[in-house]
């Protein structure tokens, strides 16, 4: 399973590096979301600093939808979905590999957005380990949930419009927990921030486990 996951992740990342969809579409989109929400909130620096963690995670969530759609589009080419089913790769390995590739793209998005909120909103993180822990757990949860629901909608003609409707409500706990944990990391309130990790951790674990168990059957019916 792990060998297959590495193989699939390597393939997806290689395709992304060559197509540069993440570089030219997902990353600019994430920054655009951050800037536009900033415009909507107005020029007050205090309001922007307070809202920055929430805006950051909203941008990450929207980017997750784009990255997941792209990940599924790779397998929607001429016969490639059948090719993957016939390849002999463990479906659990496909799930983990695709989730890992999406996670790597989300890390790049978060690095850029992190720099964005520092530069644009003058936000400074006090407790780095808390922000990093929240980001790691949220990234795992978002990529696992995204790929799982991406597989669910993969075979449908309306998949592009259906995927956001499926994913965004499901990942609402990540938006809430990530925002609160980051707010705590910015203000230095470690105890209250760490409690939100108790939601992000199980969320990631549950979606990883469900994805490993269900990706195979989903591949068959999608």
């Amino acid at each position, binding site marked *: 399973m792990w060998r*297959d996951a590495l*193989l699939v992740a390597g*393939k997806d990342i*290689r*395709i992304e590096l*060559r*197509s540069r969809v993440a570089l030219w579409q997902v990353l600019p989109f994430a920054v655009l979301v951050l800037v536009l929400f900033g415009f909507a909130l107005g020029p007050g620096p205090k309001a922007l600093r307070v809202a920055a963690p929430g805006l950051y995670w909203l941008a990450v969530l929207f980017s997750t939808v784009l990255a997941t759609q792209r990940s599924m589009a*790779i397998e929607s*080419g*001429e*016969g*490639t979905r*059948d*090719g993957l*089913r*016939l*390849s*002999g*790769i463990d479906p659990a390995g496909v799930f983990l590999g695709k989730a890992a590739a999406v996670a790597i793209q989300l890390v790049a998005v978060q690095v850029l957005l992190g720099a964005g909120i520092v530069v644009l909103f003058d936000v400074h993180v006090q407790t780095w380990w808390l922000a990093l822990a929240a980001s790691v757990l949220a990234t795992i949860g978002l990529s696992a949930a995204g790929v799982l629901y991406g597989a669910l909608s993969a075979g449908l003609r309306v998949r592009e419009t259906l995927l956001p409707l499926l994913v965004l409500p499901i990942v609402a706990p990540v938006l809430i927990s990530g925002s609160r944990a980051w707010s705590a990391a910015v203000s230095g309130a470690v105890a209250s921030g760490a409690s939100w990790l108790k939601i992000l951790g199980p969320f990631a674990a549950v979606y990883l486990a469900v994805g490993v168990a269900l990706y195979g059957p989903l591949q068959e019916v999608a």
Partner: protein
Amino acid sequence: MDRAVHLRSAVALAGRFPALSGVDLDVALGEVVAVLGPNGAGKTSLLRTCAGLLPVTSGEATVLGCDLRADRTQVRRRVGLLGHDPALYDELTALENVRFSVRAAGLGTERVGAALDRLGLVGRLGRTPVIRMSAGQRRRTALAVLVARGPEVWLLDEPHAGLDADARAFVGALVGEAAASGAAVVLTSHEPDLSVPLADRVVVMRGGRVDDVRDGGRCVAGAADRVLVAVRRDDVGVA
């Protein structure tokens, strides 16, 4: 000879609709079977069923001794399907596509170079992303995937389509080599001139069933011409 494919009253579904409606077919290892028939006869569905891609809902269905209803994953690892669509990743090169497929099958990559070489996908062409290739070159890349994987059952859906004369001749040689090595080959075609001479048996399908079985060109000297005359007379939707 051992049985590679065994279907008895097999019914398979494509979505909610029956794609095969009670097919009886046996293919031995080392045998080449050409499947002819009009559009919608069930030729592609037959291959997809044998590859474990379409679910069998009733009847007996085994490939290489594995039950298609219970063990489709095992079947998929051991068969090779060349479908209408080449099943390649557009952004990857021919070399990368073949290498990925070989690694996915748990095989060593030492056979990749030889497979690309045989299909003429060497040098700059082998390093060209598939998206920039012609339809024929993409087809050759898909064939290189099969050659590198060396499956025990070759399922070829119109393997001559979109290929130039040299590549068509290569397909003929490849089918012969696969059969000589002990693999079973099932190929569909709308071009009996190309497919019948390669086959031990010719299966004619209509309405999701096997309608007729005849000797192919490899079986009896001169049979190819007789079968060609017969299939044209019977108007089974071939060119």
